[in-house]
């Protein structure tokens, strides 16, 4: 799809989501918030998994770390935006340091290492009760205001994050970094030989894949006002986000937004109608995706458009 068409569609999508509080019920606002949230997470993963081709399962580690950082900051009296910023910064720093170690591994080993990080952080959060409330979780101060007001605050927060992640994606895609990451994905040694500082670029991609997740985590903690190791460092989340990007089209600007939107909407419909079988249906969707949509929806749509 042409860049300009895509940009216009994206803008329309953001406007539709933003208009939800005035057009529909609280439930729709909540869904819109999730759409923006997963859109952000998908766009984030796309940097390291889509462009660079490193199968990262660290998303939940970043979201969880952001959640705990934000929650602790908020409980210590920080203002919300400051707490969320802290979540983003701490997570980005963590990713930079972690990246130095873990990005040396390739393929399967990198994937395993990244999942292990999620588990390790989850276990640390369970252990370190003094700081994190341990296995029982942490309560966060409620935001004052009625449910509609709160709904709007978090909808716009997540939307802002999604737009920020989107802008970052466009800039990376068009610039030197994006080109370099694609080269790294194709042939890392050749990329090195051609003058690309492979280590530095991979770390940039990894940090980009973390920073917005950290902010999302912190905002999420403020929204639901209670976090625990299990749901902050959710293995299911960390496995679902790459699937969303695969569904939409990895390594593209619009793929993550398309894929996450399709996935979230599908999941909501399935939850509502087939509660008992919802996992099996999602599993089936994943299996069908792998077999029949190798390039994601975006490639399917552009092929149809070309025909």
């Amino acid at each position, binding site marked *: 799809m042409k860049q300009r068409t895509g940009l216009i569609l994206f803008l329309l999508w953001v406007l539709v989501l933003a208009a939800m509080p005035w057009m529909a019920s609280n439930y729709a606002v909540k869904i819109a918030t999730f759409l923006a949230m997963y859109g952000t997470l998908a766009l984030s993963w796309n940097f390291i998994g889509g462009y660079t081709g490193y199968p990262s399962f660290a998303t939940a580690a970043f979201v969880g770390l952001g959640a705990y950082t934000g929650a602790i900051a908020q409980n210590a009296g920080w203002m919300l935006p400051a707490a969320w910023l802290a979540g983003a910064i701490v997570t980005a720093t963590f990713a930079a340091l972690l990246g130095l170690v873990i990005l040396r591994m390739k393929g399967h080993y990198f994937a395993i290492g990244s999942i292990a990080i999620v588990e390790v952080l989850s276990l640390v959060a369970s252990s370190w009760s003094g700081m994190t409330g341990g296995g029982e979780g942490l309560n966060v101060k409620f935001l004052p205001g009625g449910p509609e007001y709160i709904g709007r605050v978090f909808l716009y927060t997540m939307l802002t994050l999604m737009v920020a992640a989107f802008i970052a994606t466009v800039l990376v895609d068009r610039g030197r970094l994006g080109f370099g990451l694609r*080269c790294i994905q194709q042939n890392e040694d050749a990329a090195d030989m051609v003058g*690309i500082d492979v280590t530095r670029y991979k770390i940039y991609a990894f940090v980009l894949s973390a920073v917005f997740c950290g902010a999302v985590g912190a905002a999420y903690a403020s929204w639901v006002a209670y976090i625990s190791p299990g749901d902050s460092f959710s293995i299911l989340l960390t496995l679902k986000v790459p699937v969303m990007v695969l569904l939409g089209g990895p390594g593209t600007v619009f793929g993550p937004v398309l894929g996450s939107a399709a996935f979230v909407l599908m999941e909501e419909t399935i939850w509502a109608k087939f509660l008992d079988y919802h996992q099996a249906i999602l599993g089936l969707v994943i299996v069908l995706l792998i077999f029949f949509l190798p390039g994601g929806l975006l490639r399917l749509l552009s092929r149809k458009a070309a025909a």
Partner: protein
Amino acid sequence: MSDILLSVENLSRNFGGIQAVRNVNFTLAEGEIVGLIGPNGAGKTTLVNLITGVFPASSGSVFFRGEDVTRQRPFQAARRGIARTFQIVQPFPAMTVLENVTAGSLFAGAASSRAQAEAEAMAHLEFVGLGADARRPAASLTLPSRKRLELAKSLAMKPRVLMLDEVNAGLNTSEIDQALALIRAIAARGITIILIEHLMKVVLSLSQRILVLHHGELISSGDPQDVVKDPKVIEAYLGSRFAERQKQLAGAAS
């Protein structure tokens, strides 16, 4: 006398118990075309890998334009102007031919923007004769074309030294002649060349000077015509018995 561009001093590398490169010393002056020959397994590619930072040296040093670059990493070598081609060609397979060369211009070649890099890349593609194939995926090219793509990519990196590792492997006679013409054209641009080759015809016709590597050691260097008659070189390629016979025949003839 031209400036010394590259200087290799007592360079060694061992892998476990195997000495792949052993105390190699040589210098490269600007504008030279130097041939690097030796039997299979002599360590020629390893030497190139050491100079470009793919492997760290076990001992010794490499100087480039007066700077100690022994510990450099491959991307740093590329940015400094040391480029090399691969025996087994390594493109970015899913990217187009143009994008492959653009990678060279954009990064090592330090183009100011992507558009600028593409323009430069196109010029290099025309130079090597691949202009018409610019939009094709790199994986779809034939072997001779892939070799030319490697050359174009290396040129896009704006090298001062270009190390050509067996560019002619797998080419037929007419393709080799074309390759030779291309290499001469590259040298005419002022790029210093190290040519690793098996084909004596190519080496002798292009090189001003030859280095001979055997079991990782530099056993001979100098004028091409002298080197090929050097008994040590003959022994390395054809065995000690043959060298002995040659000596006897030469002795009997005098």
